Every structure is written in C-alpha cells, then in structure tokens.
C-alpha cells in the first residue's frame, strides 16, 4: 500500500507536482490540524471507479493528518439515498463530512442539519446549488465551470479541424456539474470558432442524456449519429459517457471525433489505438486529497472558508474564490504521449 502510494505520488509529482509529500509518515501531525478527526468520505454512490480514485486521495490525506476516514455512501447516486447516509454521519457524530453532491438541492436540508450538529461539511467534486452555498464551509472543485467547458470545446475543435457541427453526450439531465459546463460551452464555441456550430442550432438542443448508464449512453451515441449523420464531433463531459462513446465509435468505425472527460485508466485502450485522440480530466486523487485537507483545516479552525482565505494541502496552497469554491487547477489532458503513465495512476 505504502509502496503503491509512493509510485502514484511520484508519478503525479513528475507531471504536475501537485502533491509532493511522498514521504509523509503515517500519524504524523500536520501543523494546524487536530489529530484523530473522524471523517466521512461520501461519494455520489459507492461502486463507481471514479470515486474509488477520489477516495484514494482522501485516504492518503487522512493518513497524513492522523485522521480516521470512512468511505460511506449509497449504491444509487440519488439525493434521497445520500440523505440516509448523511443522517447516519450525524448520528455517529462524525467531525467532518466530505461529500460529492448527488443532487445539488435535495441534500441541502440534511447538510444544514449536519452543520447544526457541529459537523464541518465540505463538498468536493460536485457542489450544492449556489443559492445553498451556506450549507457547506467550502467546495473543492476541479476547475471553474467555464474553464472545463471551454477546454472541452478547444479539444474537440482541435480534433475536428475547427469546423463542423458538434453534439454533447451528457450524464443525467439534472446533473448540475455537467449542466454548468455545458452552459459555458455554448457561447464559447460559436464565438471562438466561426466555422463550427451546434448540431441542434443551440447547445441546449444539442445535448443528449445518457444518465451515466452504459446502456443508455451507448444508445444516445447511436441516436446522435442517426439524427445528425454529418456530426463532426461529440463532447462527453462524463466518464461513463465518454467511455461508451469511445467503445461505440470503435465498434461502428464511426468517423465522428470524440472527446470529453474520462478516467485515463478506462480510456487508455482507446487512446492507445487512436479511437480517441484526447480526453481530459483532473486528478480525482488530488481532488479527494485536497478536500480532506480543506475540511480538516476548517474543523481545526485554521481555515475559515471565507472568500479570499486560503489553505494548504500538501505543499500547495489553495485560495477560496467567489461562491466559496477552491479550484484544483486546469484539467490534465491525456494523449498517446502520456496515457501510459496516467493509466496506472487513476
């Protein structure tokens, strides 16, 4: 385990030097953080590969700060299912909850309850609705929605040679992250790339929802092709969707270009064989790692979470920006050149 982590961290250090503390001994106190904190790490749903990686980073951080971390959550990625587990966290008097919101609204009342019970809540990966930001101390997100959205447009533009029509294969219609990213894609594509357009005219009419389900995502990929035979590129800003798109593109030998956000470990075969030129993603391990630090520091009162304040995780310092959100940084991109390295990490 230790060795594995070392290699992981080393690889990460090579490419981004985001997490540098490859030598952190277990149970060593980190200045400004209480030891022995009881921390719950709650994904949208357990049994999902992306969150397994996210949890990996969180567990690393916990070891560094001498906290006891539990990975707990429902089998279905819905708000109501998460609420049951939030209640459990409250009952069991956890100190800290790090959560990826499966529903940006439905869990808010429960988070407020957790807060009232003295639990420090930090959202990571997926935040609650902006209007409910007070339900958590801070949110640790990969990058600003606009940056993720526009980056994906740039990738697809590069792939299709800056001309042609584009469609989006998203997760659930109600997935807040994806909706925010897609909103940012719309105007950016039309203003920056005059020879490109959305297949449905506007971005709203060009989105297909695969519900983060392999079956439905595959069907929707096929639906895009049959509805818009001349589609040049498909952006799928979700790991299940982009994987399904890649598999299906390969199966059909389709000419359409595919890009989006995907785990390198799952996308590797398709990048290696050229089905997909480029996908991107932040490092979920880092995301979990940083979120635990933010939460532990907030609990230890060495970080307020206020806009403008900052906290240190590993060797890097993160600043809280408008809306109470700390960003990890721009997503990495994975191509043939670097996929071999990354696929071993996450």
């Amino acid at each position, binding site marked *: 385990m230790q060795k594995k982590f070392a290699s992981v961290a080393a690889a990460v250090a090579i490419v981004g030097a985001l997490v540098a503390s490859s030598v952190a001994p277990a149970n060593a106190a980190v200045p400004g953080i209480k030891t022995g904190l009881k921390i719950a790490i709650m994904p949208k749903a357990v049994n999902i590969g992306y969150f397994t990686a996210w949890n990996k980073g969180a567990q690393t951080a916990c070891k560094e700060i001498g906290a006891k971390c539990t990975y707990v959550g429902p089998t279905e990625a819905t708000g109501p299912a998460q609420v049951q587990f939030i209640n459990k966290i409250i009952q069991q008097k956890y100190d800290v909850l790090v959560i990826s919101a499966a529903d940006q609204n439905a869990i808010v009342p429960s988070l407020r309850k957790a807060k009232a019970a003295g639990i420090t809540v930090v959202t990571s990966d997926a935040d609650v609705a902006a209007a409910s930001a007070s339900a958590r101390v801070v949110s640790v997100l990969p990058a600003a929605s606009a940056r993720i959205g526009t980056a994906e447009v740039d990738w697809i533009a590069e792939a299709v040679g800056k001309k042609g029509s584009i469609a989006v294969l998203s997760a659930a219609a109600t997935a807040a992250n994806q909706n925010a990213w897609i909103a940012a894609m719309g105007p950016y594509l039309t203003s920056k790339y005059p020879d490109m357009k959305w297949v449905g005219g506007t971005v709203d009419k060009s989105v297909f929802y695969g519900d983060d*389900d*392999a*079956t439905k995502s595959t069907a929707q990929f*096929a*639906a895009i092709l*049959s509805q818009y035979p001349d589609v040049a590129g498909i952006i799928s800003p979700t790991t299940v969707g982009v994987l399904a798109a890649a598999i299906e593109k390969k199966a*059909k030998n389709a000419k359409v270009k595919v890009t989006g956000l995907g785990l390198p470990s799952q996308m590797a075969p398709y990048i290696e064989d050229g089905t997909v030129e480029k996908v991107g993603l932040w490092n979920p391990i880092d995301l979990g790692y940083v979120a635990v630090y933010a939460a532990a520091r907030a609990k230890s009162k060495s970080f307020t979470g206020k806009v403008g304040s900052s906290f240190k995780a590993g060797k890097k310092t993160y600043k809280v920006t408008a809306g109470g959100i700390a960003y990890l940084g721009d997503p990495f991109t994975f191509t043939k050149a670097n996929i071999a390295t990354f696929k071993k990490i996450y």
Partner: protein
Amino acid sequence: MKNLIQKTLKVREIPVFLGLLIVVLITGTANPAFFTLSGFQDITLGVAVVATLAVAQTLVIVMKHIDLSVGSTIGFSAYLIGDASSKGHGFWYCMALALGLGLVVGAVNGYLVAYLKLPSLVVTLATLYIVRGLFNEIAGGNTITEDMVPKAINFMGLNTFFGIPYLFLVAVILMLVVGFIMKRLRPARDLYAIGSNLAAAELVGIPVARRVFLAFLATGAVSGLAGAVLLARFNTAAANSGNGLELSVVAACVVGGVAIAGGIGTVYGAVIGAVLLQAITMALGALGVPQFWQLTVNGILLIAAISLDRYLSTRVKPTSIMGTN
C-alpha cells in the same frame, strides 16, 4: 395448404410487425439516415441484449409467471466474465461461470415458485435485490474495461457478419432455437397449456411443478449466458450494469403479444416487440422529438400497444346459446 407456423405467426405477431414497418417507413422517409446500413445496425445491435432476455422471459410469461431478476443476473454475469477473464481464465471457464450463476438464480426462483408455490412476482423481486446486492459487494467500484473482456466476446461485439451484427445474430439464433423448441418439443408445449388453463393442465396429467421449475431454470441459464452479450455489446461492466433491464424486457414481451395473462405468445413476437421498442426509441430521436418528451411518447406507445393487444384478444365473438333457429 397453409403452413401452420405461418398461420400461428399471423395471429398476433403480424400487427406488431406491421407497427414496426410503419415506424421504420415513416422515420426513414422523414430522415433517410434511418434507412442506411448503420441505421439498421443501430437498431439490431441496440436490441441484442433486450431481445435475448425477452426470448428467455417468454418462457415464464406464457406460464402466467414473471421473472424480474434477469436484470441483476445479466449484469452480475457480465461482470464475472470480465473479472475471470482478467485473472487469466479462458473463455470457456468464463462462460461456465456465467452459466453457473444463471442456473443458481434460476434454480432458486424455480424451486420457490414451482414447489413452494410462491408468487413469482414477489420471489423474483426478492432475488433481484439479493443478486444485485451480492454483485455490488463483489464488484465494488471496479470497472471491466475492454482489455479485460475475453477476445471472442470482444470480437462478437465489434464485428458484423455481412453487415449483420454478430450479437443480433446470437439473439436471432437463440430465438430460432427456442422458437423451435417451444413449437416442437412436448415439454415446452406444456408451458402454454399451464399458462392457458392451469386446472385443466393438472387434469390431463401435465407435471406442472417440474415444468415451471425447468422454465425458470432455463430463463436463469439464458440470463446468465446473456451476460456475455451484455459485455460484448458495451465492452464494459460495472456495479450498475443491467440495472432496470427487467422492465424493458417485460415491456418488449407484452408489446410483442406475449400476454401477461399467460398462454399466448411466441419468442418471435417477443423479439419483434423488442425491435419495435428499440426502433421507436431511435425513431423519436431521428424525427427530432425533443429529448424531454421522448419518455412520455414511449409510455403512451407502450399503453397503446397493450390496449391494442387487449382489443385483439377480446375481439372473439361471444358464444351464443340461442340455437341456430
């Protein structure tokens, strides 16, 4: 003289088939892309999993039973195949594992329904939960990726035989085999008798419990083996694979004229029903029906199909007791 098989087909499957033709024609006229080879492949490949399961489900529905556990079984089996393969086991080992899983689930369902005479809806709802829970416990957050899929299965998913996807061929061959069995083998004919008139079936000495058990066993076995189809189709499997498939499968059967009330229907109808539903889904997109309305239209069409079926089955004129003068 008319061929009997043709005649049977005419009774219930033809309206569904006509519906399918109408959907394809309208859609194809509005959007020529629907008529291309890839349009054909979209539908046939897309329907392979549901069609395979619908064939198996027909066995139990004609007996007036139902098996809701198929979605959990097929997902679990797909995962087990990929997992075993990634650990270096050979193709046949993986398939044996899939078959074994299906047989176990089928045997449990069959025993409880046939010998303890418990309602199949409740029993298979329970096994749906239990199998899904075991599956999730074993799979955790792992995802089966393409490199873990046995080569043969991967090949089947990606390739076509003169333009026809192999997976669809698998479903069609299964349909023909089971169709032949259901038509031509005595024990399979008993399933229709059981669903048509249970009391009379007992009266003529049909071994009802044994038949019901075997049918559930067969349905389980096919669902287990169908894990390979699911895996081939998506080249990936994870803890939520196959979630909710059971309702699509039952819907396909019902639309294809396999009546919930038992006794009626063929695997041909079930497969045509599955193709029709798939074609409708594709057509809604191709016709530009807004995404957010597609599910609604699907629901309406499903109810319409059930109503049509009901209409066709009650059209038989009542028996007159008033003599012929």
